[in-house]
């Protein structure tokens, strides 16, 4: 089935994306000059804490940002520039080529329609299938995502499913149009860990079979380690570190990435005090002038960090980091 192998041309490419949201208390810069891309068969993980801009960058790239948002930059979906397109054409491009899975499956499901109806609707609109063919396709998809006795469950309502099974239904809906790209925004955050393992396994398996590109948004570094090919660590609307998952985890070069990895309790390491990052992430209404992480940074550099924005610079071929003082594995800096 996998005619879409990993290609060189990105499925989705985002360049210099900036999102500013008008609020009662002034403009909030949610995303500032973000670049990333994802190829067929590849998984890009966007990692960050709440307010880091990880979700907003993806919503804005696919034209789903709130009305109050001002979006600039360039977004290419399968080579087509999306930002200049009329809303209706952009909606059709998105519907045909992009599937979405969000944290709470009930935000994607209509409680008064059967799950089959909802899976069918997507297929009917974007693939032009007949009613009967669409129903058969719905059963096939529910079966594909591991819903037992799919032929009978197709007529059940969302409330008759558990949280994990609802998320499977949403994944079936997302796959109905055989999308080139799957956007998964914290799809397992609300699920139990054994259910999370099932969903992660399911998406990885579907990706192998269908060659889908996946953008997976999460705050869980363990999930990232399991699913990602490349990772972008976001903080206060910017990417602080970006690269192949092995390089970033084995050799985190930004003090923030290094601290995040060290802040998780490690059952193998025993019970000493955890490494912490002081304070809390900044408000998007009131961002520091230079490096946004500077006020919390364990390295804390100098006046340059406070006043000047470090560029996203290479530490190796594909591995980039936005800091004047890259973290050294021996614990020191510079």
């Amino acid at each position, binding site marked *: 089935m996998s005619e879409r192998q990993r290609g060189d041309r990105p499925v989705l490419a985002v360049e210099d994306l900036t999102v500013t949201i008008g609020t009662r208390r002034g403009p909030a810069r949610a995303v500032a000059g973000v670049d990333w891309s994802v190829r067929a068969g590849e998984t890009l993980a966007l990692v960050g804490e709440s307010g880091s801009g990880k979700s907003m960058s993806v919503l804005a790239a696919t034209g789903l940002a709130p009305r109050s948002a001002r979006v600039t930059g360039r977004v290419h979906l399968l080579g087509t520039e999306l930002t200049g397109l009329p809303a209706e054409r952009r909606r059709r491009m998105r519907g045909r080529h992009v599937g979405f899975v969000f944290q709470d499956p009930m935000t994607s499901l209509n409680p008064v329609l059967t799950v089959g109806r909802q899976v069918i609707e997507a297929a009917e609109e974007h693939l032009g299938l007949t009613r009967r063919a669409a129903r058969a396709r719905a059963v096939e998809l529910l079966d594909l995502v591991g819903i037992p006795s799919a032929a009978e469950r197709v007529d059940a309502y969302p409330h008759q499913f558990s949280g994990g099974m609802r998320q499977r239904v949403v994944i079936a809906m997302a796959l109905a149009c055989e999308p080139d790209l799957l956007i998964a925004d914290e799809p397992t955050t609300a699920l139990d860990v054994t259910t999370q393992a099932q969903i992660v396994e399911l998406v990885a398996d579907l990706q192998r079979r269908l060659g889908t590109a996946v953008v997976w948004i999460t705050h869980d570094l363990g999930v990232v*380690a399991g699913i990602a090919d490349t990772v972008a660590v976001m903080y206060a609307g910017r990417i602080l570190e970006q690269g192949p998952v092995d390089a970033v985890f084995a050799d985190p070069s930004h003090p923030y990435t290094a601290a*995040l990895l060290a802040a998780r309790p*490690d059952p193998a390491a025993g019970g000493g005090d955890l490494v912490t990052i002081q304070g809390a992430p900044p408000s998007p209404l009131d961002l520091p002038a230079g490096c946004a992480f500077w006020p919390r940074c364990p390295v804390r550099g100098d006046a340059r960090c406070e006043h000047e924005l470090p560029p996203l610079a290479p530490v190796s071929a594909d591995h980039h980091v936005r800091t004047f003082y890259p973290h050294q594995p021996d614990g020191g800096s510079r």
Partner: protein
Amino acid sequence: MSPQPEPAEVVAALDDLTVWFPTPAGVVRAVDGVSLQVRRGETLGLVGESGSGKSTTGLALLRLVDPTSGSVWVAGQEVTRWSRRRLRALRRRVAMVFQDPQASLDPRCTIGASIAEPLIVHRLTDGGAARRRRVEELLDLVGLRRDLADRHPHELSGGQRQRVGIARALAGEPDLIVLDEPIASLDLSVQAQIMNLLRGLQRELGLTYLFIAHDLAAVEHMSDRLAVMYLGRIVESGTPAQIWREPAHPYTAALLSAVPVADPRVERQRRRIILTGDIPSPVDPPDGCRFRTRCPQARPECAGTDPVLVEVDGEHRAACLFAGEAVRAMRAP
């Protein structure tokens, strides 16, 4: 676990506790025969997935839910049927920290007033000046600036609000603090701060915790002993090292294998035990062993016998007819 708690050492105990809730769909057996003891100065970790009954078990220790049968003991006294008036005294001895500090603080009250509330309710300070001093002392303890006393909850970060929740719990100098998912709604960089704070306070003040969470790595890190719950029962208990290195119950082994590790090389080589299906309804739990419907090692005997916790190695206990053996079979290549 012995039914009679020893007053000297055991701060709180549950003995064969059941908590059933009548619902239109039938009787939900949220907690269905749980015995445990929390010893002075320790952290007992309680882990389980949603529907395991871990939170209800915590609520029962404060008598915030009524036991259907079994008994609840705090500081050597049986409190199972204490009257509402006496419960006020109980809730000074056992305090609780909730998951969502936003929801557990009154948005109209200043932080100072929120922290002072338990001091007033339990008549712990003499007069306004003494109360203000105690509030400042509590703010110091949890690492908050004293001037935050005049702020309202919405002006604080999530981590700061959770510190306020902890200060309120400390106010009555309780024998036991029940921590119900205290870090689950916090950002990653803030979770470590709160875990270090809780451990520091425990060392400094000799506190006793029941730490309830679904995050296994966090529970393992925080606990001296832990208990794993599934569908209203404790299925395994022991030290974190015993359980982490050599889980004896197939459910624990599956749970541990599902926890993602932040190392791509480890993740690629891991063999996961993926459970099939969902946790059964607590209205109608399977007969025999409750885990048998999802257990990769279920055998015919499992339908006929409801296994009890038996010793595996010292304090390490598991409720499985094939404890140890089943897990070895699951992990074999």
